[in-house]
């Protein structure tokens, strides 16, 4: 029962780690380029989830000050939320740029499967 209570206390962190492992499995296993880009996106989201879960305080209120309330309320840590807002925009920019590169790759090679692209590149090297 101690183990179950421990697991339920850390359930946020375990969920973030599970999402990260799922994203990594997607990047390593599949050979389709778009699935790999989505896997990288999932890994980034999992790291953000972990970072915000660290700043949680049990029975804490959201960080909004009531002007005419008492000043003895325990707030959660607002600092990780602020830092993650900048991180989300960076991940979105990287995803958009890599998707545009995939559009270019499709126009050049005619396929978005990574094994077929490697085979076409080997064929081009031999004929050059």
């Amino acid at each position: 029962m101690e183990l179950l209570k421990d697991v339920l206390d850390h359930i946020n962190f375990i969920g973030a780690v599970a999402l990260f492992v799922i994203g990594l499995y997607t990047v390593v296993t599949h050979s389709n380029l778009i699935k790999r880009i989505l896997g990288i996106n999932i890994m980034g989201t999992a790291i953000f989830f972990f970072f915000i879960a660290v700043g949680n305080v049990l029975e804490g209120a959201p960080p909004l000050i009531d002007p005419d309330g008492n000043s003895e309320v325990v707030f959660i840590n607002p600092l990780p939320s602020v830092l993650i807002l900048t991180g989300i925009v960076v991940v979105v920019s990287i995803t958009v740029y890599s998707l545009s590169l995939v559009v270019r790759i499709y126009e050049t090679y005619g396929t978005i499967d990574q094994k077929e692209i490697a085979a076409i590149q080997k064929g081009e090297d031999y004929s050059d």
Partner: protein
Amino acid sequence: MNDIIVRSITRIVIPFVMLYGIYIVLHGHISPGGGFSGGALVGSSLILYTLVFGVDKARKKFSHRVSEIAESGGILLYLFVGALGIILSGSFLSNQSAGFPMGELGSLLSGGVIPILMIVIGIKVASTMISLFHILIEEEK
């Protein structure tokens, strides 16, 4: 899309989504939300319009020229507010020590320069989303 249900419902829903997004941007200093999430909502409503009614009609409403002005003007406005901080008090992007009016705690007009920065961020995020969608979706003729 040629479906009549999708077109009718979209015509009704888009003004409400845009109004809600603008509300979240304007009340960014009172309730949770702020510039980034409100800008994402406004951008999503414009993307919905593009998906349902076609790229040509959406290009007329949000042309290349408008997105150029929104993108560049956002950063220039931010730098202008920062330069105002230098002129008035001596440090870049200062708020209370530069003498901006503070107002009372919790009302809509409070916080000096903070609501202006929220509006700038909202415009910039919405313009980025709709510009990227239009660039990625156009085809070569």
